[in-house]
């Protein structure tokens, strides 16, 4: 699938932590080959999220995959979560080793 020369796309999603389980479930069922999550805090159009306690943190989710899939994932996310949740997402082209992994 996709190009084979080692170029892939990194999809980065930053959103409220409460979404984590649901978001990862969706990513998985849409075919994401893997993901990495770390905790974060931030400020955006929906105000400050300080990560001081349970309901107030962000997560930073990264998926490396083929560009088509990254676009599909980001569109899904945009349709289902963008309106009601604090969230941003962006795409970056990356060069990978062992492209067959992704």
């Amino acid at each position, binding site marked *: 699938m996709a190009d084979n020369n080692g170029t892939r796309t990194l999809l980065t999603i930053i959103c409220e932590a409460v*979404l984590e389980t649901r978001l990862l479930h969706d990513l998985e069922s849409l075919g994401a080959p893997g993901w990495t999550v770390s905790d974060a805090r931030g400020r955006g159009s929906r*105000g400050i999220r300080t990560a*001081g*306690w349970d309901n107030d943190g962000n997560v930073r989710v990264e998926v490396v995959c083929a560009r088509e899939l990254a676009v599909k994932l980001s569109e899904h996310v945009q349709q289902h*979560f963008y309106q009601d*949740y604090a969230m941003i997402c962006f795409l970056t082209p990356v060069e990978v080793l062992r492209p067959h992994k992704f």
Partner: protein
Amino acid sequence: MGWDPVVLFFVFGVVAGLLRSELKLPPALYETLSILLLLAIGLHGGVELAAQASPALVGQMLLVLVMGVVLPLIAFPLLRALRFGRVDAASVAAHYGSVSAGTFAVVVAYMLAEGVFFESYMPLFVAILEIPAILVGIVLARGLSTTTNWSELGREIFLGKSIVLLLGGLLIGVLAGKEAVAPLEPLYTSMFAPVLALFLLEMGLIASRHMGSLRESGLRLAIFALVMPWVGAAVGLGFATLMGLSVGGAAMLATLGASASYIAVPAAMRLALPEANPSLSLGASLGITFPFNIIFGIPLYLQAAQWLQAGV
């Protein structure tokens, strides 16, 4: 006797937060404290429950369940009358129909300090009261629509952190019994007040932020957040009379009625009613109702329970 130091820790947190001090507790500490509180409350309740269980308890549990359905049904029209949108009103009603374990911990400490007897299985009622209001809130917002994924939602609600910890503690207490639990007693004796004090310090810091956000959401919300505790307390006293609780138990059920959730329900609402504005519910519950209850409410509710019992 001076001020209650546990409450002063809350005030300290609020002041430090309003002055925008650098003070903040590590998130892992806050989580640890709330886990300890919930486990301690559950365990203590379970140990006593094992000693006092009676058939009457089943009836009482059913009444508490009804109370959990009634409360949001009272809060909702009140909020609609204050011209909140349907979904926001439903979400706030769910918060106020449910309970705050932090407030419960404060009322436990208060009753112990005052030497007032109460039914020791009250933690069971906390667990029961957590859930129905959430379901009622969703139905108020959505109707009995089919788009809600009830099975997933049910899992998220019933297996949420606070219910699992409360019920887990309860069950362990019941199964192990007082004698075997003895080595764990520090959790609800010597360690309880220190843990609660630190927890309230953090709650104060968090509340101070939500007080700021209240300025935006304005007067209508503040009115609700100050009126609803009285209503909830009255409902609690009413049910306590039906259930035949002691004065202490009645005051605690009143406190539960007056309290609003700020842990379990916000997470559930965020997933079930995402279009509801979370800062409305949290501003009201954390910024106004929680401080009101722990500073003024609890002594008031105890007094009311005493009058009521004396009058009967």
